[in-house]
């Protein structure tokens, strides 16, 4: 197997089938969220779906669904201001979920005893369309200097979908996830698309090495623009905060490839197994030389 075949195998291992537990769970919660929103605000909000599935960048180790809940520009059905919309949608979702407030999104987690704070991989993004075209939208920016941001879900999805570098994005997302790098996925995708603009015809391995080399060689954050709002949404600060670890890990990864090869980056591709993970885990416990019992201080 050559390098590019190996990378394709890694990608295959990260696919999620339509009938996978993960996607089925997303669909169940999608329906539940829509029900909660409709119950509180009726048929007025326009609900659309984004996230990695819509963009084609889904990987097993990091997947999410964005549910946008946009109000028409002339509607006060969920509040007069963007902040009110954000807070009212949050309150409505609290009827079914533990809601973690992010800058613009509301992250949904379990709120019952058996799944408390388990992540459902769903972000609900409340907002309001800027005009009757129902295309551009203003979203609230919780705790940010600028309290609102103009964005466009369709432009974002089209930008990634049409980039022709989806495989590279998925592999670099896997790399980012495994390294625990704290750079916003959307900004990271924009960076990858920009860096690979003239490398679309290259092999996957060449594309990845190019991205890491560019990041590694740049002392300052590489400038990226939000295609939905090039002049209004300044991503410099986001990139600046993440740059030192991004640069450091890109450099380390290039060294790893040089000295230990690609498998040292993405791991060996496992052959298909007949036993389930739980069965294999059960077998593995038999060989644990120093077992220990977990404990919880609260009784």
């Amino acid at each position, binding site marked *: 197997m050559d390098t590019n075949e190996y990378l394709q195998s890694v990608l295959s291992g990260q696919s999620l089938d339509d009938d996978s537990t993960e996607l089925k769970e997303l669909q169940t919660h999608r329906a539940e969220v829509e029900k909660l929103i409709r119950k509180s605000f009726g048929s007025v909000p326009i609900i659309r779906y984004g996230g990695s599935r819509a963009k084609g960048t889904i990987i097993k*180790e990091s997947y999410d669904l964005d549910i946008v809940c946009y109000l028409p520009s002339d509607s006060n059905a969920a509040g007069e201001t963007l902040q009110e919309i954000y807070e009212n949608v949050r309150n409505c979702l609290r009827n079914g979920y533990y809601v973690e407030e992010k800058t613009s999104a509301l992250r949904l*987690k*379990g709120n019952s*005893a*058996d*799944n*408390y*704070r*388990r*992540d*459902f*991989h769903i972000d609900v993004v409340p907002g309001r369309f800027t005009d009757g075209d129902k295309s551009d939208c203003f979203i609230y920016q919780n705790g940010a200097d600028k309290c609102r941001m103009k964005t466009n879900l369709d432009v974002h999805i089209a930008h990634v979908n049409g980039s022709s570098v989806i495989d590279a994005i998925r592999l670099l997302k896997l790399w980012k*996830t*495994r*390294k*625990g790098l704290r750079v916003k996925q959307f900004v990271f995708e924009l960076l990858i698309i920009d860096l690979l603009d003239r490398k679309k015809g290259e092999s996957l391995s060449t594309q990845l090495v190019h991205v890491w080399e560019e990041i590694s060689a740049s002392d300052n954050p590489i400038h990226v623009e939000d295609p939905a709002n090039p002049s209004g949404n300044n991503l410099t600060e986001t990139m600046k905060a993440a740059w030192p*670890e991004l640069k450091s*890990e890109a450099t*380390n990864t290039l060294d*790893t490839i040089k000295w230990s090869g690609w498998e*040292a*980056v993405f*791991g*060996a591709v*496992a052959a298909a197994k007949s036993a*389930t*993970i*739980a069965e*294999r*885990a*059960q*077998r*593995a*416990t038999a*060989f*644990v030389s*120093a*077992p*220990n*019992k*977990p*404990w*919880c*201080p*609260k*009784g």
Partner: protein
Amino acid sequence: MIAPWHERNPVVLKAMKAELATHYPDLRVIVERGIVHIRGSFPVIDDAEVLDRFLIEVTLATDYPDSVPVLKEVGGRVPWHEDRHVIPGNGEACLIVPEEWIIQPNHDSILAFLIGPVRNFFLGQILVESGNPWPFGERSHGLPGLIEAYGEILGTSDGHTLRRYLDCLSREALKGHWECPCGSTKRLRDCHLNKVKSLRMIILPRVAQQAVNRLDKLSERQKKNSAHPIFRRIE
């Protein structure tokens, strides 16, 4: 104020980074605001193959390795629930009674921690997720779990007796004329002096004191629901 461990021992930090790069290449060591963290994807390995992965953050307090590293599963896969051995208030995983780890001879090795309690914890999570029991059993929650753990180390199941042993072990020097902690009312030199001496080889006074403090804290919490104190302090 004592400088954090990684400033006192930069060589140890460097060695830790090298060790992780070799054995767990997806885990990164980061120093943020004077605290060392380990972040990334933890592979649960069996027979050289990755069974599963969990996104983790391990925090090494300024007094590491005198304290147990704090593990959090940050991918949102494990619910914050006592029965999953995750503290609901802060998401910290409860891998082991801390003193059970601190008395291990290799407790200062991060690799031993990851291969041992962390891997065991996630093997357990995989099994519990699929409806199986904890593979190696689990400690009772709260104070009873502490008594079970300390009891196994000290060789007694009686709460009062183990408390007396811990009090005795927490002192810097031993005196033969002390009353034996076993409860016989004999002098220590005429009773369990050898046992106490053996225990002191593995339980340092600092660790015994830490155990006493932990018992007191949980005992205090439990006392709120009970008319009688759980332990009597030795005067």
